[in-house]
């Protein structure tokens, strides 16, 4: 009896042990996936050069309720080695995002590598500006910064691996989810298009009105001035006894 109990206990212990091992391995893989996620965001994207104090702005014309994710990585040029250093301590980038009404919706300083996320609440042209905080660095001395930048808008910003993991979707479900997100984006863009077309029409109608009123007013002014000139000169000449 005792042996059976012992055997059973050992087996149950081994079972819980193996379950724990699987759980730990799962957790490890999840973290690895997340880490690689983060790592991949900073893998070589498009890059360009800016001066230390230069401010570089990008325009994103987006409909409302659209999420934008921006990843950037900065490298400093090392004059001695004549190459770009992989990472620099203390180098920061200031990210400023303005909405179409020139109101600042995001204004933060990040490190040399950063990720900024914002969602638009008004449709229109948003401005994303980047500049470095190099005011306290004397070492730069006219150096150039290499900035790797990647901006993902709307549906492209979605991380399908994460969504699949979170909602536990099968392959087909994930594909359908992706299609739904795409259609959502198209619909938002169409709405925005309608709003823009309305603005365009208002501007054209306003120009039309202005041109119309201006022609009438100009003709009236001309006629009135003509009359005034003739009358004034006539009275002037009569006063001078020339007429």
């Amino acid at each position, binding site marked *: 009896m005792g042996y059976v109990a012992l055997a059973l206990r050992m087996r149950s212990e081994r079972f819980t042990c193996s379950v724990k091992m699987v759980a730990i391995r799962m957790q490890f893989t999840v973290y690895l*996936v997340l880490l690689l996620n983060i790592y991949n965001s900073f893998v070589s994207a498009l890059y360009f050069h800016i001066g230390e104090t230069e401010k570089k702005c990008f325009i994103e014309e987006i409909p409302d309720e659209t999420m934008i994710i921006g990843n950037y990585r900065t490298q400093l040029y090392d004059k001695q080695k004549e190459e770009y250093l992989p990472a620099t301590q203390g180098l920061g980038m200031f990210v400023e995002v303005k909405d179409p009404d020139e109101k600042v919706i995001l204004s933060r300083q990040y490190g040399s590598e950063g990720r900024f996320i914002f969602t638009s609440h008004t449709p229109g042209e948003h401005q994303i500006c980047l500049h470095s905080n190099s005011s306290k660095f004397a070492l730069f001395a006219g150096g150039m910064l290499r900035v790797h930048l990647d901006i993902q808008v709307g549906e492209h910003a979605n991380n399908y691996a994460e969504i699949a993991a979170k909602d536990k979707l099968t392959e087909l479900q994930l594909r359908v989810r992706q299609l739904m997100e795409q259609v959502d984006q*198209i619909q938002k863009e169409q709405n925005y298009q309608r709003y823009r077309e309305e603005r365009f029409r208002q501007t054209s109608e306003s120009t039309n009105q202005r041109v119309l009123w201006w022609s009438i007013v100009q003709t009236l002014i001309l006629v009135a001035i003509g009359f005034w000139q003739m009358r004034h000169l006539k009275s002037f000449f009569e006063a001078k006894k020339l007429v």
Partner: protein
Amino acid sequence: MLFWFLLLCVQLMLGWIRASELTFELPDNAKQCFYEDISIGTKCTLEFQVVTGGHYDVDCRLEDPDGTVLYKEMKKQYDSFTFTASRNGTFKFCFSNEFSTFTHKTVYFDFQVGDDPPLFPNENGVTALTQMESACVSIHEALKSVIDYQTHFRLRETQGRSRAEDLNTRVAFWSIGEAFILLVVSISQVLLLRSFFSDKKTTTTRVGS
């Protein structure tokens, strides 16, 4: 478990397949260059469009890592160029507004490197897709082209709209300016005429006496 591992592989692959789409302002007499590291054999597409500014044209130049010019066009409004990377290295493309003296240009470009990443690693594998899955894939491709057309339409509409808004402000300023000029000119005409006759009057009196 395998699913997680395969997801990992997908993540790894994502690094080498990119599409960058940016809109930036190019000041007058300025040149802006972008660089991208591309591996050999990757099919890339560069598409650009000038959104606002002057005659809506910009110079574009694409160079491979050796410095060979793959694409060079002057004063182009919109173009699309597809090429396959002939070697590993940093490819460079530049937009130049150096021919313009005072107009700022807003340029949109879309640089696609490689094909889109597959949603699952199975797509590259041996297993065939079910009918539902292949239908999903074709719908996805069609929707991608719809989004692409929408973007180009939006850019052309922006062009038209900014011109219309420009025209509107110009008409307003011009009307006010012209009204002002009219009044000034007519009053000064009358005053000038009066001054002619006033002088003549004094000379006649002087001659008389």
